[in-house]
């Protein structure tokens, strides 16, 4: 089956529903924390948590900044991250593309949105890793406690001085991943359906 065959005709009802579900999944992901970073030390038995949302960092930022200033780490401030200003709009864009794909029932639009979303996800992961590197390496030389530069893992557990830093995707990221997964699923359905159609067409021609 050629790509032109794949893109021919309208999306099936199933695929449109799947694309719409993906769009719906994106809505809560804009309001739920995407990533959680928890710092645990003996005197913080409950841990200090930072929650990264699409548009902000929340949680015990002041306490984390107080601790970080001892090792000369830059303060975590919302304005430091230009990403927060446009991520919500990007999510809105994916949502719009998905809804549009479902309405006009065009696979191209769906595919465009999905690739767009995938690229965004990967770029954001790299971006996140970049920030973790930046914060762990840009340590002020005048800090009271000098520490070798470090990079916390963006996923997993890292030991930094007396803290165990745990970084894990949160509900928002799970929603996004599910939405992202629905793309290939829809594509699979379309591919199978169209292959069957193509076969029927061929038979009819014969």
């Amino acid at each position: 089956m050629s790509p032109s065959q794949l893109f021919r005709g309208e999306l099936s009802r199933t695929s449109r529903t799947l694309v719409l579900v993906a769009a719906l999944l994106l809505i809560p992901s804009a309001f739920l924390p995407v990533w959680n970073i928890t710092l645990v030390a003996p005197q913080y038995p409950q841990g200090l948590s930072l929650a990264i949302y699409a548009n902000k960092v929340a949680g015990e930022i002041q306490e984390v900044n107080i601790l970080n200033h001892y090792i000369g780490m830059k303060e975590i401030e919302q304005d430091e991250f230009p990403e927060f200003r446009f991520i919500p709009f990007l999510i809105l864009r994916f949502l719009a593309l998905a809804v549009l794909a479902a309405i006009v029932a065009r696979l191209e639009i769906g595919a465009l949105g999905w690739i767009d979303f995938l690229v965004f996800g990967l770029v954001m992961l790299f971006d996140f890793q970049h920030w973790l590197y930046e914060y762990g390496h840009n340590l002020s030389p005048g800090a009271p406690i000098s520490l070798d530069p470090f990079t916390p893992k963006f996923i997993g557990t890292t030991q930094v001085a007396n803290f165990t830093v745990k970084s894990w995707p949160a509900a928002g990221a799970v929603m996004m991943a599910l939405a992202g997964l629905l793309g290939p699923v829809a594509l699979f359905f379309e591919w199978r359906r169209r292959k069957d159609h193509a076969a029927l067409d061929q038979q009819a021609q014969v």
Partner: protein
Amino acid sequence: MRAKRAIWAVAAFAVIALAIAGPQSCTRGPAGASVGELARERGLSEADITAALKTYLPTGQLDEYVMFSSGGHSGQVLVIGVPSMRLLKVIAAFTPEPWQGYGYGAGGTMEALEGGLVNGKEVLWGDTHHPAISETDGEYDGQFLFIDDKANARVAVISLKDFETKQVLHNPLMGSDHGATFVTPNTEYVIQSSQYAVPLDGSYADLSEYQERYRGAVTFWKFDRAAGRIDPSRSFTLELPPYWQDLADAGKGPSMGWVFLGSFNTEMATGGIETTGVPFEAGASANDMDYLHAINWQRAEQVYQSGNGLRRIQGMSVIPLDVSISEGLLYLIPEPKSPHGADVTPDGRMIVTAGKLDPHVSVYSFEKIQDAIANETFSGRDPFGVAILDFDAVLEAQVELGLGPLHTQFDGRGGAYTSLFIETAVAKWSLEDFTLKEKIGVHYNIGHLAAAEGDTRTPDGNYLVALNKWSIDRFMPVGPLHPQNFQLIDVTGEPMQLLYDMPIGIGEPHYAQIIKADKLDPWLVYPEVGFSPHAMASDPNAVSSGEERIERNGNRVDVYMTAIRSHFTPEHIKVRQGDRVRIYLTSLETIRDGTHGFAIDKHNINVSLEPGESEVVEFVADQAGVYPFYCSEFCSALHLEMVGYLLVEP
């Protein structure tokens, strides 16, 4: 059928086997020795081991109850976990306390202590006697705590949000108090009654004029719950005969609206052993009977509000004795000699008094008291014209308990517990059949006792603490001034079991109250950054990061300072000799235990700045020189570096 029974038998056997093998297999502790070996080595009996198991709390586990105890002469309140009997906190009330920064410069604490000035004089000790937890519908509500200072007739109000004293009041009508503090069932009023009679107007009167000029008094301090303060302008006092009024308790349920107040020295002895040869101790205990005072406080409130016959004495509204008599506010009830307790039963139907020089407790029926008042079943009137109810007409029962009964608490199952001072024991008796059930010896010379929620409408009936005056041989000798001994007793079953001895190394505590821990809801940090514990609201003078500054106005210097780990901002304060310096301090901390201190060398200033707290210190920089100021709390790894300089230019 048989097979089924066999399976059950096997299963039961397995359970028994597990029960036997289980404990044995885990009795070996981490240190190596088994529980049995340890007990033998330390000479512990099975009762000792059960007592240990009932009181021991592993690290991180919390107590089921919190006991607020008077701190005696320390002028403080002790906060103790029950059943572990661990000291959790000391709340400063009448006396400066450095760690809490109470009375060392912090504005709010200075203001509280100023409220306790006695005729303009600083009195920096207090003989704290009876704490009272605020109540709603006759149950502890865990919001406020009151405590009195017997020596100077003062009352302190403590918030149980931050466990800090908010207000101290001096009662100008009294020389000393004793029936304080007790609250009415909804904390409408905090009750304070005098002990040793003096002239109410504070003037001089010779002891030869004792009956004419000396008077007792009971003050009903109006508590304003929303403000968290006593409102003296809405409080009133009843003038009482110059007997020495003692412990009080407010009626509840059917006896709501009344308060009962014991008394002694109804002989009105004036002592003078050196001339009369009759010391107070003999003169004041000559009669076989003293008087329990029954006071209708709700009607007294109406009389006060009507303003009829009121007198203003030393700024206080006083209902004179003759008005109390004519309005039916006050009646006397004979009670066996030298009593020390007047305790209303949980159902509010009976009042128990204990005459410490009589082996009985006397139980009065509130209903019979009301009938006797209605039918004027009086046995006479006292020299001041107060009606004395007929003893037999109002008595429900007398129970012979032993020597020196003092104070009674309840278990909510019809059981009553009375301390026996002379016998140094606790007697358990029944409110149902008025018989003595059992006694347990305590060590030694018990004064008050406190049962878990034991003076509320629904006592819990599990723990009881004996507040013993002497400890003799119970603790390691530490010189002639011995610790007192708080003994925890399990009263869940019979016999009562002594569980634990807690030495009290400060003051001479009198009474304590025990509240279920889950009724308390204290703040872990202040509710917001820049919160004034004195105003219990956001402080307009608090500053946030970046707003710190120093402002000069003539010879007044205002410093707006923040504290956060591990620095003050600003760190340099330069003033001129003679300047009046005011430092507004704001803690920017938001986490538990993130407390800073603010101490200025050689200025008697030490402030405790708890997370979020805002405080002000004011002083005159009267000596030129260089004065480091520093964080007096080990706040962080850079605590020693949390410092600044106050530079006073000549």
